């Protein structure tokens, strides 16, 4: 184990986010198939509720973080040229961060507090 336990931290993030996403997905799919929101007002109302809004924001954030760890693992396995790997990782990190900010802004704009 490294001194700062960075590998352990991302390993744990990977597992905890996986558990959260599994539970969220199963609840969301069951709920949406029992009460399908077929028109825009009903659909927007689902995500305007502060609780659904927050749980969904957390889901998107953890999905992006989970994917970041997964992509990093793939790069570590297949991209052996260190500078290339660094640049690729930087690009993916930037993209995930931008997607996270964008999703936050969009979901925040529909929440009915």
């Amino acid at each position, binding site marked *: 184990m490294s001194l700062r336990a960075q590998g352990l931290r991302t390993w744990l993030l990977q597992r905890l986010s*996986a558990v959260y996403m599994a539970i969220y997905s199963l609840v969301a799919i069951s709920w949406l198939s029992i009460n399908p929101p077929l*028109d825009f007002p009903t659909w927007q109302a689902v995500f305007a509720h502060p609780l659904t809004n927050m749980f969904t924001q957390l889901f998107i954030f953890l999905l992006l973080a989970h994917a970041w760890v997964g*992509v990093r693992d793939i790069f570590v396995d297949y991209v052996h040229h260190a500078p290339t790997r660094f640049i690729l990782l930087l690009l993916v990190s930037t993209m995930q961060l931008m*997607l996270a900010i*964008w999703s936050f802004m969009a979901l925040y704009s529909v929440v009915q507090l």
Partner: protein
Amino acid sequence: MPITAIASILHRLSGAFIFFTTPFLLYLFIASLKSNSGFALANAWLDSWWVTLLYLILIWAAVHHLLAGIRCLLLDLDIGVDCSSANLSAMLVTGLAVGLSVITIVWVL
């Protein structure tokens, strides 16, 4: 290739597939929340043949990734680490993912 290797590489491939489709799916989701016309736009995208193909593959990818992920968590907890159970669970994950995807695809189409 042993079944455990197949389940493992499919776990990785399905994850990569989800990673590449995430920006587009987020775009659709956000558009659908913004306005009536965005909602209609997202629905129109989902009706097109190539987005339909995309989400049919995505259903399999998500189911496989979820099942393989549960297997991975159990292995982390030292459950099913011996060779015969690892083979059995890999077979179960790969087969069940295909089976459940077919059921889901028939149900959504």
